[in-house]
């Protein structure tokens, strides 16, 4: 089969991202490295959300929970002097999967507005738990003593190395999601989204497939959390704030729900616009001071004019 235009766009985007570190070094603008690393970390989180939101039809309004769990896994282990990245990141993934299993076991049985409210409620519980633990900084959060350490193989303190680690994980997750969506598992998941009654009639019980997708998604997002706290070097319960869940959901919808490239496009569009409107010196002061207003207007226009999100603007088959 010939790759679709969207696959080319996605491959082009990843190549472009790979070219950023030498370009930033050449232009002496290390700031861009930082910005795009942040974009990619959120793209990973949005990709994980897209698996259940886009393909599973499960509108999780609590995906920030796993960002938080991944971040706390790194931060808390670091607090006790354990900086080994292999261990930290394994715990981040494992703990997120376990929590997703617990939350999913309850919430996946529900649908529609109940699912939204239950996932939100669980995440708020975790958020307030984070705030209440004074030892780890409570409300204020705490600074990380060190980034995750990988037996001297990879040095995350080197901005370019860290950048490429994030890029590699993003590319891997995009590929894995694609495989998953196209597999029998993915087809069963999408069938249940498309027509649940029919899916049951031909013999699919949606629950186990939805729960499995929920756990995989949570585990992926947990790793994004581990990356995020390494990026900010600061652990805060704000990672789990409900507005963060909303942002992730918005990235998926803006980029194109149920498309491979969508979460990356959405994360890039949202975060780059945010940055541009806040800081671009060519813009009048009235814009930079009230940037949220202008961002809102742009986003509303995009959503209105591109029903399938940004990925929908690229010719190709919609799934």
């Amino acid at each position: 089969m010939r790759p679709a235009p969207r696959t080319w766009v996605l491959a082009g985007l990843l190549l472009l991202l790979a070219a950023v570190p030498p370009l930033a070094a050449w232009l002496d603008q290390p700031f861009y490295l930082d910005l795009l690393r942040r974009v990619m970390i959120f793209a990973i989180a949005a990709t994980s959300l897209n698996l259940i939101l886009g393909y599973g039809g499960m509108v999780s309004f609590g995906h920030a929970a796993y960002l938080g769990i991944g971040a706390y896994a790194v931060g808390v282990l670091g607090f006790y002097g354990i900086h080994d990245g292999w261990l930290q990141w394994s715990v981040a993934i494992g703990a997120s999967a376990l929590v997703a299993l617990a939350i999913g076991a309850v919430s996946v049985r529900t649908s529609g507005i109940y699912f939204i409210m239950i996932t939100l409620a669980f995440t708020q519980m975790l958020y307030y738990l984070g705030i209440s633990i004074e030892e780890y900084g409570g409300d204020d959060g705490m600074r990380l003593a060190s980034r995750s350490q990988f037996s001297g193989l990879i040095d995350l303190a080197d901005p370019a190395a860290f950048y490429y680690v994030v890029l590699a994980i993003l590319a891997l997750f995009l590929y894995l999601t694609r495989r998953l969506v196209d597999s029998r598992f993915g087809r069963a998941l999408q069938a249940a989204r498309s027509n649940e009654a029919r899916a049951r009639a031909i013999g699919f019980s949606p629950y186990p497939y939805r729960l499995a997708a929920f756990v995989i998604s949570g585990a992926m997002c947990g790793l994004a959390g581990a990356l995020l706290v390494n990026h900010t070097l600061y652990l805060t319960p704000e990672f789990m704030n409900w507005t963060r869940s909303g942002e992730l959901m918005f990235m998926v919808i803006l980029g194109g729900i149920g498309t491979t490239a969508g979460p990356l496009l959405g994360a890039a569009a949202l975060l780059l616009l945010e940055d541009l409107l806040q800081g671009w010196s060519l813009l009048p002061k009235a814009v930079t001071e009230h940037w949220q207003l202008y961002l809102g207007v742009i986003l509303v226009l995009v959503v209105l004019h591109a029903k399938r999100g940004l990925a929908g603007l690229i010719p190709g088959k919609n799934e």
Partner: protein
Amino acid sequence: MSSPLLETVGLRKAFGALVATDGVDFDVREGETHAVIGPNGAGKTTFIKQLSGELQPDTGSVRFAGEDITRLPPQRRSRKGLARSFQITSIFHDFSTLDNVALAIQAYAGHSFRFWRAAREDASLIQPAMQLLKQVGLEGKAQVLATKLSHGEHRQLEIAMALATRPRLLLLDEPVAGMGTDESARMVKFLETLKGSKTIVLVEHDMDAVFSLADRISVLVYGRIVATGTPAEIRANAEVRAAYLGEEG
């Protein structure tokens, strides 16, 4: 002769004072096409729903392949090999025609916790799905989104999906209802190809379809079966002519 594949004994279902099914004894032999006809309000839909399990009779029993299935819900009956096509279209609208059938085959093939291999490139799904599409005459529409198919094509797709679960008995609820003349002729021609290899219960209004397809016909009037026999016997039956065929001209 061997015992029938599907059999009802003394089936009775009442809705308040209205007796919709009134002591129906009915049997379907392995391999035959048994049509159920009757004027509007004769209780055909109520009857077929008791066969598929969507309704439970007040008294009487339903036996399938020698087993009492009177109290089994539809999904359990479907697992035992009793497949029903719906009067109202129920398909995966945002999947291609081929994917719809491939999904039904995948569901029949057992659990779907297979995460790696692309289902669209899985010959064990695609080949039989394509075969079924050819069988129902939809192979030219394999890659078309199911929602874009015509009404008649939806019915064809439904039957392909029902066949994908390899049923022992196919319950067809008005398969040519709402179809144009050409479409309906094509559907009848297709159903003729199933004859003999599949056991079929056919509930239908279209008399041309019934008389060209059925091995036996049962006539349901006011919840009772007034006659059962070959098409020729039914045509010649005075009671049937009076009750039913006469009305249709």
